[in-house]
């Protein structure tokens, strides 16, 4: 998800050959709700939120850390494991 328009994200996805859909938060409502809106620059700062099936945040990566998906993948595995062994 980014604050780019749908057409901009489409072009971005095309260039990178991304097959999954990208979300567009053009009105900046979601980045504001998640507290990652950069008012000075007008875009959402880099961040990754892992939300479980109950809608609860289970992991947050912010800033440059969020470039590397390793920690969130690990957190996903923990969630999956919890599901497997209740």
């Amino acid at each position, binding site marked *: 998800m980014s604050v780019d328009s749908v057409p901009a994200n489409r072009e971005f996805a095309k260039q990178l050959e991304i097959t999954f859909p990208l979300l*567009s938060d053009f009105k900046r409502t979601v980045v504001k709700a998640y*507290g990652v809106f950069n008012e000075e620059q007008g875009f959402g*700062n*880099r961040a990754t939120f892992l939300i479980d099936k109950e809608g609860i*945040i289970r992991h947050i990566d912010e800033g440059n850390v969020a470039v590397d998906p390793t920690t969130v993948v690990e957190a996903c595995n923990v969630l999956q494991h919890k599901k497997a062994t209740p």
Partner: protein
Amino acid sequence: MMYTRIFTGLVLLAVLSVVGLAQQTPPVKTHLKVGDPAPDFTLRATDGKQYKLSDFKGKKNVVLAIYVLAFTGG
């Protein structure tokens, strides 16, 4: 003298690079914490469909990855 200049130049370059990086991704201060309910949202995607976070409730875990801008790295 020349070496001093080169050294000063290198130090300047290093400082500018650090400043540049810092500006690229300023510190994020989200008020949300692990354990908080994720704010619901409905957004349009590149496939033309609307996606609502609460539609995944009870079905799937969701990774919400926010990238700075299209056409930028990471």
